[in-house]
């Protein structure tokens, strides 16, 4: 398949791996931010191929995983209201809330539908004028423009039966949180290619300068990631801390200006809770006051729902590179994708789920699978 196979070709991959191994004088600790990148690295066993030259730490960039419990509970509450059509990206349906998940709401008679685009939810709202249609607007900067577009379009059309449950988060504040922790072992970052397609990478230049860590914008295919790793290792060996772009076929420094503009017209930066992490200041989006009529939390009066999360699992340590998923005592036993106990086990992009799905056969002794 054109534009895919070129980036999965084993021969250039071997050359990149050899070069990384030749260049690295010690095992550098690198973090990929995005869950899609984690998925590829684990699926292709790239960590295994780089063992000894590079240690990969899996960052908090799985949108499904970091959507806070209280938002999932709000989604469940709204979806259970009769005559509501609740529309969501597919992988949010299995995410456990405090007591239920959207699949169960559906099983109990709720009208929960999977969509690939918020525009499908708009269409449903037009086609069902007597029913209230709610779109679950989650994700990082990647999905924010399309979700903003839906609200913008709904306002323009005067669609009164459409609203959005918004839980958007931003990548740079999470990186800042990690770098501010004095236990962080991360020495370089693969910046998220899709997020940067929208946002560009100027924000990462500030981070690189302030924390003196290198960033390389990476794509999602094996060769994209190996190239990003090669560039990071080179920077580290040469003592540089710059932002470089290994995903130029999609990313420019300024990003997608039209998308960013529409996004900022509809959303404003706000404090956000992250599942498993807690509140991070100025780390997400909420709808601007001009769009309050499309805010499902207000429309359905669920703003007050809150859900304390009991401290238990080790995702903190996993995300800081202090532990691997297989080091968790409940990994693969009580905690599996069918019975996720922690956020990173929920979506296939979560670090724990990716390990469970693809790599538990090489888990160290002690981790029962």
């Amino acid at each position, binding site marked *: 398949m054109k534009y895919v196979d070129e980036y999965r070709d*084993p021969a250039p991959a071997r050359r990149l791996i050899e070069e990384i191994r030749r260049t690295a004088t010690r095992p550098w600790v690198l973090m990929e931010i995005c869950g899609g990148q984690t998925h590829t690295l684990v699926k*292709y066993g790239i960590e295994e191929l780089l063992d000894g030259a590079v240690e990969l730490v899996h960052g908090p960039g799985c949108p499904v995983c970091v959507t806070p419990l209280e938002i999932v509970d709000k989604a469940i509450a709204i979806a259970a209201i009769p005559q509501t059509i609740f529309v969501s990206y597919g*992988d949010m349906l299995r995410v456990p809330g405090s007591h239920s998940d959207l699949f*169960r709401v559906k099983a*109990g008679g709720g009208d929960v539908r999977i969509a690939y685009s918020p525009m499908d939810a708009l269409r449903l709202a037009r086609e069902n004028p007597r029913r209230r249609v709610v779109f679950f607007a989650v*994700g990082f900067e990647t999905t924010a423009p399309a979700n903003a577009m839906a609200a913008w379009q709904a306002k323009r059309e005067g669609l009164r039966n459409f609203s959005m449950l918004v839980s958007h988060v931003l990548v740079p504040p999470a990186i800042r949180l*990690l770098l501010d922790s004095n236990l962080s072992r991360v020495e370089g970052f693969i910046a998220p290619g899709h997020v940067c397609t929208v946002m560009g990478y100027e924000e990462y230049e500030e981070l690189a300068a302030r924390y003196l860590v290198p960033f390389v914008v990476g794509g999602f295919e094996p060769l994209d990631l190996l190239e990003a790793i090669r560039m990071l290792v080179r920077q580290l060996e040469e003592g540089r801390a710059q932002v470089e772009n290994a995903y130029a076929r999609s990313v420019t420094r300024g990003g997608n200006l039209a998308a960013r503009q529409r996004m900022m017209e509809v959303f404003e930066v706000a404090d956000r809770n992250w599942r498993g992490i*807690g509140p991070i200041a100025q780390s997400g989006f909420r709808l601007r006051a001009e769009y309050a009529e499309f805010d499902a939390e207000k429309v359905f009066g669920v703003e007050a729902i809150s859900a304390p999360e009991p401290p238990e699992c080790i995702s903190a340590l996993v995300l800081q590179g202090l532990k691997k998923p297989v080091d968790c005592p409940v990994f693969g036993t009580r905690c599996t994708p069918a019975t996720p106990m922690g956020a990173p086990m929920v979506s296939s992009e979560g670090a724990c789920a990716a390990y469970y799905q693809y790599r538990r*056969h090489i888990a160290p002794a002690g981790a029962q699978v």
Partner: protein
Amino acid sequence: MSGPIQFTCPVPLAARDRIVLGHGSGGKLSAELLRDVFLPYFRSPILNRLDDQAVLEINGARLAFTTDSFVVKPLFFRGGDIGSLAVNGTVNDLAMGGATPLYLSAGFILEEGLDIEILRRAAESMGRAADSIPVEIVTGDTKVVEKGKGDGLFINTTGIGLVPEGVRLSPALVRPGDRVLLSGPIGDHGIAILAEREGIEFSTDLASDCAPLNGLVAAMLAASLDIRTMRDPTRGGLSSALNEIAARAGVGVTIEESAIPVREEVRGACEMLGLDPLYVANEGKLVAFVAPDAAEAVLEAMRRHALGRDAALIGTATGTHPGLVLLRTPFGTTRIVDMLPGDQLPRIC
């Protein structure tokens, strides 16, 4: 900040107390349902084997017996419809036991208000499919449920067939070293159906691979009786079929990613939708475990048959990692090919 950042976890959900769609996915949830709800009450050693069909010894004859229900949406799709699917699906379950299909029953659950023309088209398609096999539909039943209590048309078919002398297929016969043969490219049916489903419509020329496999199976058995076991990888796809065999046979399975045929259209759709072809349904493919000495002859016989033209040797049964299916990537690494808990879910981005 000092000390590790505090992260926390949600409370795990208790065991599922309601049926969710994933229980029908052919994955782990389906298996749990069998294990926890049905098998303890039915207490049948034959059922406990969990083969696609029961093989019953009656007066010296070996009878294969199976049933399947069809709830596909849309009812008519490129490459097939609920009628042909209902006939071929049950015939294929018989064929996977090596049986020659003989007779089918057909049960219909109709929703009040269903257009009779739709039912007529489905029945016509069933008749045509049955003739081509050939198999005879000899008994049936019709029930009507109130409007809103069904989804237009559900069909159940039950089939019986005869297992020829000398044919013995079972996962229990699989040995390390056996070769794994696949009859053709995977994922056509699932992607063809998905392309026509509400909310996901995309244009493709791809057609369902819906077809009866009894002819292909007969050709394979004529080439060699050293075929150990066969499955048609329907719901849950190739991964579920291989995992089931690995678990029942107590062997490991290693497959080569580069050896598994997948059409460009299917790969493209899967890339776009965030799905893995290994988990996408097929309705006219089979996977066979064959003794190493017989593998070449069987593979050639498959390739001579119209439904096995693109058959491929995709892997081997192993004595290591029993119960686990591993896939070797073109990068030389291996990864697990697991059974999914429920349906594959489209990813956010």
